[in-house]
């Protein structure tokens, strides 16, 4: 049954399906129960699955992730909700020092099938700590896998895939896209679904490759539509997975187009774009017509909401970068 639903609702359906399919799946976080989460992503789940499956926790992020570690050792599959990107840091020690390393430390004896959901990114007019993009901190940590969805169909499938995976996964949700609708096949099973750790070409093109993920995929697609009107064909790749990076499709694309522009909201300095640009340079050097360019947030703390539109990469900044690439 294909339905046109929001990305937030798709996540809700995906979580519901995971709770139904595996009795060991538990959701835990602040306000996830009666309130259904501050973004209502867990709406109705506690009512249907009970307080032991959808657990309203004390207000402490390290506690949410740290107790999830113990539950996972016990055989559960915890799904932690961190309320906002900027609130994850009290849990940072648990995520990078414990969740990421216990499998390695125990020589493979202890698996931690934990998913840490983090709504991230800006564009919703929020106050400090509610609009950040901390993905690079986690992608830099071996032992963690990091993914992000950009549309309702992916959200529905990817959250289920993440929960079903034995790998610890940080699952970034583009909060400014929670309310965007798309077709979702709610009957589709995971078997045969597009792999969790694979990037995807979401728009084919021949003149330049635009690489984006999460909230910026929509911006990249809009830029490609605008560029087409100007007679320029942009290929857009949704990375979907930030660790491991699946750059095979990116290399294929760049070898054809000769130009690459990486787009993300996070500050550019040592961000995901730096890694991607370096790898494209290593792999596609002789195909490049111009340096790999980055369109990112600035190297400032996330600014006040009234100026965030100037901070966030938008269609014009992407097109400007494409123009610069052609001007090389």
């Amino acid at each position: 049954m294909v339905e046109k639903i929001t990305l937030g609702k798709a996540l809700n359906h995906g979580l519901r399906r995971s709770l139904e399919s595996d009795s060991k799946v538990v959701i835990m976080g602040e306000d996830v129960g009666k309130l259904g989460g501050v973004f209502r992503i867990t709406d109705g789940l506690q009512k249907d699955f009970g307080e032991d499956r959808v657990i309203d926790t004390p207000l402490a992020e390290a506690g949410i992730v740290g107790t999830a570690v113990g539950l996972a050792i016990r055989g559960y599959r915890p799904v932690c909700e961190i309320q906002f990107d900027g609130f994850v840091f009290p849990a940072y020690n648990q995520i990078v020092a414990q969740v990421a390393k216990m499998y390695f430390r125990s020589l493979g004896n202890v698996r931690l099938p934990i998913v840490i959901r983090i709504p991230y990114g800006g564009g919703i007019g929020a106050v400090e700590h509610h609009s950040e993009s901390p993905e690079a901190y986690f992608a830099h940590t071996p032992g963690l896998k990091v993914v992000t969805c950009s549309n309702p169909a992916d959200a529905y499938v990817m959250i289920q895939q993440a929960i079903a995976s034995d790998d610890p996964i940080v699952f970034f949700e583009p909060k400014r896209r929670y309310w965007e609708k798309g077709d979702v096949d709610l009957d589709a099973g995971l078997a045969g679904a597009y792999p969790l750790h694979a990037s995807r070409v979401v728009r084919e093109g021949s003149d330049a490759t635009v690489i984006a993920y999460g909230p910026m995929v929509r911006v990249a697609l809009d830029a490609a539509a605008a560029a087409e009107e100007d007679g320029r064909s942009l290929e857009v790749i949704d990375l979907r997975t930030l660790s491991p990076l699946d750059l095979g499709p990116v290399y294929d694309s760049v070898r054809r187009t000769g130009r690459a522009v990486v787009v993300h909201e996070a500050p550019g300095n040592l961000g995901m774009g730096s890694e991607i640009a370096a790898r494209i340079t290593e792999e596609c050097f002789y195909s490049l017509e111009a340096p790999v360019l980055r369109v990112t947030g600035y190297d400032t703390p996330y600014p006040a909401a009234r100026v965030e539109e100037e901070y966030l990469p938008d269609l014009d900044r992407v097109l400007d970068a494409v123009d610069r690439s052609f001007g090389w």
Partner: protein
Amino acid sequence: MANDESQPGLDAPAGGFVQLLTPDGERVDSVTTAEGVTYSVDFTDDEYRELYKDLVTVRRLDAEATALQRQGELGIWASLLGQEAAQVGSGRALRPQDMAFPTYREHGVLYTRGIDPIMPFGLFRGVDQGGWDPNEFKFNTYTIVIGSQTLHATGYAMGITMDGKTGSPEGEAVIAYFGDGATSQGEVNESFVWSGVFNAPIVFFCQNNQYAISEPLERQTRIPLYRRAAGYGFPGVRIDGNDVLATFAVTRAALDNARNGQGPTLIEAYTYRMGAHTSSDDPTRYRIASEVESWKAKDPISRLKAFLTKQQLADDTFFGEVDESARKLALDLRERVLAMPDPQPVTMFDNVYPNGSPEVDAQRQQFADYQASFEGSGH
């Protein structure tokens, strides 16, 4: 607890503690705390002797490790010298179904769980991260970041409740080990909050060995640590941590309470770290010799030996046999530690992810190719 009404024992801290065996080896039949809880033990003669053997063995293994470190065979060692009673008493109070979450100093507890004592040596020698299977032995990996494991223990305990494994004598319980320094950590505070709120079947076992590396207890707290439990809504008990009988009695009672659905307990084992924090520090810089000497008089092994002797439960022949058995075990350990091979470098790529990773796989291949390129080149 503040068992002010009970017999505080020699050199007890202000507020007293539960003590069932004095430093002179005198047995106290039972102790009733101010809250009206009575603690006692009823060991057979053999069980007393076995406890003594545990203490001596653990101390001997620890001494061997210290020697190995001094000889350059271990990169570092965290000695438990002085804390044998706290670890053996609490460890022996655990039932097979109970789960323990240690720091990095719980070699005595590890021993009581039936784990080959060589296991932590991989970590300290630098050949692995510690090699036992936590699920098999119900003893989790060592945790080096201070206090983190208390949250893991709490989550595991919540899982016990969710599995319906509490509320009966056959239920399961969890014990979380940490030191006095860890009580300053936010995560330990959070684990107390969580455990209280969810009535988790957990025993928090704080070995107050008086120092967090060089920081004395006064840098961690203004009140006795066991009294913190009241703020979280569960009982706190202070024990003489150098008294293996009190340690056993109180831990067993707290575990039973937990498995019966009565929630958490905080135990403060009042003890002393006789050696350095690890082999890398110098305790003479931060504590005085007379303090160390005063704690020597409270030694956990000598007092049990005195008790066994006075009660005619053991003689020199027995003590000699125990020493010889421990010596053999230590020598065997030494031989095996020296024989521990360095890991194949390529194994660093193992066990990063349960489902693997193309990136790690590619780096493994690059590494292997690079290594192979040296073959025959004289490197």
